């Protein structure tokens, strides 16, 4: 990379280093910088209008070799070999297929072993690497920051822009250090960290920032855990979240099909080791979280910042000093049909959803399976387990996780975004309450009138056993 070109010896943050190495043109007189994009991920929902724009302007895709597409948002998780029933979903997927063919873009279609949620597919192929820039027309692109990449979601106009130019005009982000000290207790996981972070800084607290997660509790996380945290950076209002690369990162990447090999691997690792934030580098803001004190977490409201520890109760809006926050809490409790003071653990659920780009990787499935193994699903509760990709599904089946889920009483599905946003048939019915390992508890997100509580895979598993929101500490 052009790391040397930045020409500065001042201590820099990880984010600044990646930015500097990708600056094609330095903006002057208030103009943004022009930033080079190393990897562009594409899916069926936010791309059709972008390809249309290219056609109208007679522009080609500049770098098909830096672009990859997968089908995920609309895809069914049952009967995947049959024709998709919903005609609008089918047309959208067929449109992606014809666009990929026309513009020469690699596509992993439903049924392909590499098909799956776009943010599971990139890392699994070894395409997501430290120090690169990654974009996708999806806000959860922040996931890839777990590798020390600068990764962020873009709108469809920007998708067209990247397809045409492989760059984006961008103003530099501010930087925020989120330091999680100490060590997580058993039963507490990456999801609990990020839910606690969002509850602390609010859904707008990260606005304009790149978050860098640091500290011993982050270092001790696997790549899957780091992806869970970076994934939900957008839920704190930040476009991107990052974790500095280390041996955990290198070990995850080594040997993956698109990871560098041989001498290239050595050169890459040497460069990646220069990326962590320099001693003395200054962040624009800092937040510190005590990892030792964290407990399993859960949301009670309709935005991801409305969360508490599972041991707590539904808050009373009257206790919230800010008038806007109070009004939002009142509205959320009405939608969620919850009364102030209700212990979180006494709230019964109708469904448990285990999946989404936040928590559908092999380690998530293993964690979930470890809690439910040999137990039975609570009466009257439905459970759907949706692996993040076809490859994760196969890997889990090789370990017998499908059997554990089915013996427990749950449904083992094919890969996709599924009930995280219900663009396919996997939706909550009006009034149904769901413990979900996904990322958004917005009104109607999982189906019109559905009520979502965001939780970790461990909490989802404990909840599936007990039928009420539960901590893994409540289960033998």
């Amino acid at each position, binding site marked *: 990379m052009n790391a040397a070109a930045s020409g500065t010896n001042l201590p820099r943050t990880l984010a600044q280093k990646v930015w500097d190495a990708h600056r*094609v*043109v330095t*903006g002057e*007189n*208030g103009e943004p910088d*022009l930033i*080079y994009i*190393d990897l562009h991920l594409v899916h069926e*929902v*936010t791309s059709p*209008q972008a390809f*249309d724009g290219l056609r109208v302007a007679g522009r080609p895709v500049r770098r098909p070799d*830096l672009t990859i597409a997968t089908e995920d*948002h609309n895809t069914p998780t049952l009967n995947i070999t049959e024709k998709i029933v919903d005609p*609008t979903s089918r*047309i*959208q997927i067929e*449109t992606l297929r014809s666009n990929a063919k026309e513009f020469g873009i*690699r596509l992993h279609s439903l049924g392909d072993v590499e098909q799956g949620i776009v943010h599971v597919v990139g890392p699994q192929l*070894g*395409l997501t690497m430290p120090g*690169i820039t990654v974009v996708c027309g*999806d*806000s959860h692109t922040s996931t890839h920051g777990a590798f020390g990449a600068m990764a962020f*979601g*873009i*709108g*469809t*106009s*920007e998708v*067209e*822009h990247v397809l*045409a*130019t*492989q*760059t984006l*005009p961008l*103003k530099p982000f501010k930087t925020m250090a989120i330091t999680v000290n100490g060590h997580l207790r058993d039963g507490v996981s990456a999801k609990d960290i990020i839910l606690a972070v969002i509850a602390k800084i609010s*859904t*707008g607290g990260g*606005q*304009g920032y790149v978050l860098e997660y640091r500290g011993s509790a982050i270092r001790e996380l696997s790549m899957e855990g780091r992806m869970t945290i970076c994934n939900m950076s*957008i*839920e704190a*209002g930040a476009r991107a979240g990052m974790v500095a690369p280390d041996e955990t990162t290198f070990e995850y990447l080594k040997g993956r*099909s*698109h990871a560098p090999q041989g001498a290239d691997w050595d050169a*890459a690792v040497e*460069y990646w080791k220069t990326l962590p934030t320099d001693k003395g580098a200054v962040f624009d803001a800092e937040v510190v979280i005590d990892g030792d004190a964290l407990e399993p977490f859960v949301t009670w409201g309709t*935005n991801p910042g409305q969360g508490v520890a599972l041991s707590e109760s539904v808050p009373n809006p009257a206790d919230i000093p800010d008038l*806007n926050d109070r*009004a*939002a809490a009142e509205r959320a409790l009405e939608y969620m049909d919850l009364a102030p003071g209700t212990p979180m653990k006494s709230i019964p659920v109708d469904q448990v959803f285990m999946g989404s780009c936040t928590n559908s990787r092999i380690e998530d499935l293993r964690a979930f399976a470890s809690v439910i193994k040999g137990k039975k699903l609570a009466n009257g509760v439905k459970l759907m387990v949706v692996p993040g990709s076809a490859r994760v599904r196969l890997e889990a089946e090789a370990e017998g996780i499908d059997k554990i889920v089915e013996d427990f009483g749950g449904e083992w599905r094919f890969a996709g975004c599924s009930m995280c*946003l*219900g*663009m396919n048939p996997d939706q909550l019915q009006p009034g149904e309450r769901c413990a979900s390992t996904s990322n*958004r508890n*917005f*009104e*109607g997100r999982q189906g019109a009138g559905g009520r979502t509580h965001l939780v970790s895979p461990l909490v989802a598993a404990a909840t599936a056993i007990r039928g009420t929101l539960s901590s893994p500490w409540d289960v033998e």
Partner: protein
Amino acid sequence: MDTVSVITGIGVPLKRSNVDTDQIIPAEFLKRVTKTGFEDALFYRWREDPEFVLNVEPFTHGTVLVAGMDFGTGSSREHAVWALRDFGFNAVIAPRFADIFRGNSGKQGLLTAVVPESIVEAIWAEIDANPGVSVTVDLVNRSVSCGDVHSPFEIDDYTRWRLMEGLDDIGLTLRHEADIDAFETHRESWLPKTLPAR
């Protein structure tokens, strides 16, 4: 893109904070492959309530939305901007916008004006007192006004210039095509390549 300078029209008070893009347009409407025709999808669930502001005259003819803190959070769907535009909105005023939503708006000629929370509340009061009152968002002078309320608003110089000139981002970037070519010659060979598939 059309040029933007001074927008005047009926102000619509949306007295809610954290309006996420799932509320602006639910996911079921994202399956379309076109860029227009989303007006009916705008705030689809909230519009099921006959008393929701967009169902009430004269706000059905609104062109300036006045919303609470953190408008446009969540999903990157540009459909949210298309739906607002298709309904007839030319500007949104709020104390803070989500980054991606604001960026998307700038690409579609939807003006996003950031003003202090107190100004939003003052405009809401003006509209309450006089429903149908005009709100003006003046991009040239970077000011918002409604009745007795007058305030400057924040927007960065570059976005303002692009909106006023109606410029296309891709065209602007392609002025730097030689720089992009030069940059690409220095990229390391081990950087990820999706082709050939391995």
